[in-house]
């Protein structure tokens, strides 16, 4: 992972309320804590939690002073949804990486015919940074529950970070009720071994 400003690593996690963005950021932050680093996070919750645009900033390093990632300084953008990736693409640094779930959720105004969903999202994202498209929702569906999309995508993110797999698995195991632990660990491992095709650019 490239070091961000002030040597802090910056990951911005975004998606549509209900997709598990906050859970993702909690797991990531916990993994960082277990690795003995300072971590700060800041998120949108409350009214956005069903269907709204949700973001969670996670920053870590030797010492982090503020939880909000400045524009253009995120090392990684982890997007659970395509349009949300586009909405926050400007936060990624030019040599950063955008992980985008191969999944779109139509906003109400698109469904009602009052607006259009953006076209060629990959093309637009590539103007900001490298794009890695991950079929996280498909992975989760094949493993039996689409609600694990977030953990599958987190698995992909782990490819870019230096934290040991054991730590990830330990934290995930503590994050879910007993019966969801094994499926989520599987989702994580599948995401962690998925090789994204070069999205070009």
């Amino acid at each position: 992972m490239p070091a961000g400003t002030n040597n802090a690593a910056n990951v911005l996690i975004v998606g549509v309320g209900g997709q598990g963005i906050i859970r993702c950021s909690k797991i990531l932050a916990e993994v960082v804590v277990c690795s003995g680093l300072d971590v700060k996070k800041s998120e949108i919750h409350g009214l956005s939690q069903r269907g709204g645009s949700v973001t969670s900033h996670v920053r870590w390093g030797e010492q982090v002073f503020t939880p909000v990632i400045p524009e253009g300084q995120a090392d990684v953008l982890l997007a659970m949804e395509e349009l949300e990736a586009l909405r926050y693409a400007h936060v990624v640094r030019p040599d950063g990486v955008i992980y985008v779930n191969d999944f779109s959720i139509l906003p109400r105004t698109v469904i009602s015919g009052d607006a259009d969903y953006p076209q060629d999202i990959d093309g637009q994202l590539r103007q900001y940074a490298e794009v890695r498209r991950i079929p996280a929702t498909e992975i989760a569906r094949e493993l039996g529950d689409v609600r694990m999309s977030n953990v599958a995508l987190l698995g992909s993110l782990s490819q870019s970070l230096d934290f040991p797999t054991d730590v990830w698995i330990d934290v995930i195991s503590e994050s879910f009720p007993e019966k969801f632990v094994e499926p989520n660990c599987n989702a994580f491992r599948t995401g962690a071994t998925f090789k994204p095709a070069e999205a070009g650019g």
Partner: protein
Amino acid sequence: PGCGHTAVFHILKELKLAVNGDIGCYGLAALPPYDMTDSVICMGGGMTLNQGFAKVAALRENARPAVGVVGDSTFFHSGLTGVANMVYNKTPSTVLILDNRTTAMTGHQPNPTSGNKIGGEASPPLDIGEICRALGVKHVHEVDATDIDRLKEIVEQETQRDEPSVLVVRERCVMVERGRSGPVYQILDTCKECKLCLRLGCPAVSIDDGRIHIVDYLCEGCGLCANVCSFDAIVPKQESK
């Protein structure tokens, strides 16, 4: 839909009422597809502003009826004074108190209707309807937000009345009290694609390549979509599990 109180705004829109809203989550009804909030000032502002609307409407023929909308939490914050004012000044205003037993807009803090304090300790839930009666409102109705026909009938009746009236509209917040209220619904092939159900703003009703469908895992089982469908094309799904 995700939010059971959505039905209220569906009805207010059908009845073409003016809506004096407030800053709770029901203020989001100002956004598409409802566009059903005409004013938002502050907590308790909708129901008090509506008293001005009611006074002006009383002076004009064919005035568009208006309602004030407030949530349960806001009601306890700054709504009781508005009800007292409405009764004291004999204002023929109609107030809808949307009671979801939580403070949803700011992150689900408990409030006097919730039945517990913020630390989880049990606490007596206050009865909004009884409080309004005690304040002197003669026409107080308690209605379930999912009982669409009755809700519509009472809103129509009370907005015509020349005395103060209150509707306490009750439905859980699906983000706090989890679990479906009924079966998952599905759309049959007899769908005429009129798209009326899409205008409900329900997160579960979606469209893919022109085909309208209900997303299983988002459906709360409230049946509002089935209620608005003119072609009986939305029915409960037979649960296989």
